[in-house]
C-alpha cells in the first residue's frame, strides 16, 4: 500500500507496473506537448522563429499549436506581462485542462526584466506556477528549445500515481494570491541596475 506522500508502491510488482505506466504516459505527454503561446512582446518573435522551419519545435512533438487554452498542455508566456494582463493569463491558465505546464520565456516574464515599474508584473510566478524559466532578452530559439527539453525531462520524472502533482492550485485566500504577500514583495524587490533608478517621491 502507498502511504501519504509516497509516490511509488512498496509492492515490487506493482511498483514495476506503475513505472511502466508512467514511462508510457510520460513519454506520450512529453513528446506531444501542445503549446499555448501567450506572446506579448519581442520574445514572441523568437517564439515564432522557434516554431518556424529553421528551428522547428515540431521536431519535439509540438506540431500543433493550440490557440485555445482548452486544448493546450503548456502555456508559454513569451514577453512582459503588465498588471492589466494578469487576470487574463490567470484565466487562461485556469482554463487549461490538467496536466498542464508553464514555461516563462525571457527576462521580463521571469522577473520583470528591465521594466521595474508601476505597470509590470515582476515575474509571472506571482500569478501562475512556473515549471521552466528560460533566461535571455530575448532568448535565442536554441534557448527556448533547451527549456522545452528541460520540460520534457521534468515531465518524464513525474508519476501518474502522484495525485498531488496534478491537483488544481487554489488561491491562498480570498485575495486571489497564489503566494503569501511577503513572498511576492520579496521576489519583486529591485535588483541589479534597477536599484539605481531615480525615484522622485
Amino acid at each position, binding site marked *: 500500500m502507498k502511504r501519504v506522500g509516497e509516490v511509488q508502491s512498496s509492492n515490487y510488482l506493482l511498483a514495476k507496473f506503475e513505472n511502466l505506466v508512467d514511462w508510457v504516459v510520460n513519454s506520450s505527454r512529453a513528446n506531444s506537448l501542445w503549446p499555448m503561446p501567450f506572446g506579448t512582446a519581442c520574445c514572441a518573435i523568437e517564439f515564432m522563429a522557434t516554431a518556424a522551419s529553421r528551428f522547428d519545435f515540431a521536431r519535439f512533438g509540438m506540431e500543433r499549436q493550440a490557440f485555445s487554452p482548452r486544448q493546450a498542455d503548456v502555456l508559454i508566456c513569451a514577453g512582459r506581462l503588465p498588471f492589466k494582463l494578469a*487576470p487574463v493569463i490567470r484565466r487562461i491558465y485556469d482554463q487549461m485542462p490538467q496536466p498542464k505546464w508553464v514555461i516563462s520565456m525571457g527576462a521580463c516574464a521571469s522577473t520583470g526584466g528591465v521594466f521595474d515599474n508601476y505597470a509590470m*508584473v515582476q515575474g509571472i510566478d506571482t500569478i501562475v506556477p512556473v515549471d521552466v524559466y528560460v533566461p535571455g532578452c530575448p532568448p535565442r530559439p536554441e534557448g527556448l528549445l533547451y527549456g522545452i527539453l528541460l520540460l520534457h525531462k521534468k515531465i518524464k520524472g513525474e508519476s501518474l500515481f502522484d495525485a498531488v502533482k496534478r491537483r488544481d492550485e487554489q488561491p491562498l485566500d480570498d485575495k486571489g494570491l497564489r503566494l503569501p504577500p511577503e513572498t511576492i514583495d520579496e521576489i519583486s524587490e529591485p535588483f541589479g541596475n534597477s536599484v539605481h533608478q531615480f525615484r522622485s517621491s
Partner: protein
Amino acid sequence: MTSPVPGALRTEVARDGETIVFVAPAHLLETMRWLKDTPGQEFDYLVDVTAVEFRDRERPLQVVYFLRSLSRKADVRVKVELPASGELAVDSVWGLWHGADWLEREVFDMFGVTFHGHPDLRRILMWETYAEGYPLRKNFPLRGRFSRSEQVRQALNANPEAHYSMQELSIAEAAGDLPDDMRDRLRRGERGVIPEPPNS
C-alpha cells in the same frame, strides 16, 4: 501661418520650424474652432494630444495639441498651460475632432487632466479601478504607490471584461425603445451595469 491667431497669448517657433501657439485655457475652444474652420487654416486633422510636466514644479503643466491640415500639408502645435497649483482642467476638443476621444482619455489617465465636455472620460491604459494616481506625473513614484503584493492583488481582482463601450452606452440610451427581453439581457450582462436611461 501669417494671420494672428485669435485668443493666442504668444507664438513661438520650435526648433524644427513648426509654429507653437500658446492659448489661455478659457479661449482654447474658440481658437481651435478658428483653426479648424477658417478658410486658409483648415486644420482638419488632430494628430495627437499629449501633456508635458516639467521637473521644475513652478512651471505650469502643458497640454499639447498637434494639428495638421491635410489639404495644406501644414502643421501647428497648440499649447495650453495649466498652473500646477490650480485645477488641472481644460475644455475637450471632442466636439471639433472626434478623434480626440481616446487621446484625451490617455492624457487624463496618465496626467490627471480633466477635459470638460468629453463624452466618456475614463482611464484607457490603466484599468478603471486603478487607484494609485496618475503615472506620468512627476510626483508619482516609478514603482507605483502600493506594495507589489497589493498591486498583484488589485490586478488579479480587476475584471478585464467590466468595460463598457460607446456602442453599449448608445444601446443604453436607446434602451427605452428596445424589446423587454433584450433590455433585460443587456442589464444582466457580465460586462458591467448599464445605466437606466434618464427618461424611463
